[in-house]
């Protein structure tokens, strides 16, 4: 940034300005006040575990909830799917769970490296789900597209909302500020959890149904999660 004399002049100005800012001193009475505020509640605290351990914890909760939900829902879809369809959907849903668990763990510590951007997490999971459906499921539209579809969307919503609350309760010890990114990641993990029992139960295994009512609802819910985070706007959560 110092290629020409004008830049050197600007650099000098910035250095002088920075030096003048360094004169801000902490007044002793403020130091005493801060000390007084904090000292009464100064107790030992246990630091958060590492990000990998946090991600594993989220993934364990994801897996436990998924197994529990699979156990209680009807398994019509499971019996109708081919081996390739089942394998691909299992890989995608597990992959989504891992990806969003990692992303959530990385958002739990203020000032830590984000690792991979949220846009990449969303793009990868979107491409995985839509691509898998497009490749492995037939493109036949049913005549009862809406009446077959909305119960799936409603079921996804009914599972995703409480799941998002559970993940938020788990994350709030570290995720201190609400933000669009945190909202999207929390809802993303909850939505992938909701997609597991939905895929096992749903007997309408046509690509248009899965894209619109399963993946489409998931996208809308993630968007709403991001919007909620944005509206709460960096509010202190802990």
């Amino acid at each position, binding site marked *: 940034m110092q290629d020409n004399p*004008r830049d050197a002049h600007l650099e000098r100005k910035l250095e*002088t300005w920075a030096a003048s800012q360094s004169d*801000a001193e902490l007044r002793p009475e403020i130091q005493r006040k801060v*000390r007084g505020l904090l000292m009464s509640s100064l107790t030992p605290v246990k*630091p958060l575990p590492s990000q990998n351990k946090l991600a594993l914890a989220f993934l364990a909760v994801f897996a436990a909830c998924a197994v529990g939900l699979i156990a209680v829902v009807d398994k019509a879809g499971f019996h109708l799917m081919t081996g390739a369809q089942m394998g691909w959907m299992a890989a995608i849903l597990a992959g989504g769970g891992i990806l969003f668990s990692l992303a959530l763990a990385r958002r739990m*510590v203020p*000032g830590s490296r*984000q690792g991979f951007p949220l846009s990449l997490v969303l793009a990868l999971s979107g491409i995985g789900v839509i691509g898998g459906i497009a490749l492995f499921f037939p493109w036949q539209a049913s005549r009862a597209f809406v009446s077959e579809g909305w119960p799936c969307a409603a079921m996804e919503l009914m599972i995703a909302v409480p799941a998002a609350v559970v993940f938020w309760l788990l994350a709030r*010890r570290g995720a201190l500020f609400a933000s669009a990114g945190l909202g999207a990641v929390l809802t993303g993990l909850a939505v992938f959890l909701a997609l597991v029992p939905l895929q096992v139960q749903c007997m309408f295994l046509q690509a248009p149904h899965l894209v619109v009512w399963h993946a489409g609802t998931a996208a809308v819910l993630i968007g709403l999660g991001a919007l909620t985070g944005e509206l709460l706007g*960096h509010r202190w959560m802990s």
Partner: protein
Amino acid sequence: MGETRIDDRELRDLMTRYQRADPVALDELVRRISPPLLRYFGGSWVGRNDVEDLLQDCWIKIHRSRHTYRVSEPLMPWIYAIARHTRLDAYRKQRRLESREVLVASVPEGLHQMLPETQPEQDDFDRLIASLPEAQREVIVMLKVSGMSLEEVAKATSSTIGAVKQKAHRAYETLRRAMGKDRENAR
């Protein structure tokens, strides 16, 4: 700027002791970290009392979230991430208050009022810095006043090194243009 850089290894040690409830470590952290925080909070929309209120608010938040700090990470980006949200919270509150007011009684007092007198030319430069968009000003303050590295700023602002470089570049462009205009006007 040399004295604005703080030995991060020592700070990490103090922070670990603070997590174990060592009052001496708390005192030392308040003494060492508060001046850079005061500089960070000083800006276009805050007066001296506001800056000190922000500092107290920030310390309360640091205290409440001290369990989220991990000794394997540098301390200052963690501190600045909390300071950044304290500032955003306060800015939002101020905006809400201002929107309810019919008349603005006075122009907010700037941080420059708590600093020693500077040359008129430097006052102009203070105004130029204050007129930068908040995200650009924040990056310039962290890089130049706090002496943080690009990576530390990226961590503190939850963004990437590329995004920080871009904001710094835009801030430089804006300052360069404004300084050019000032010179033309002076002729």
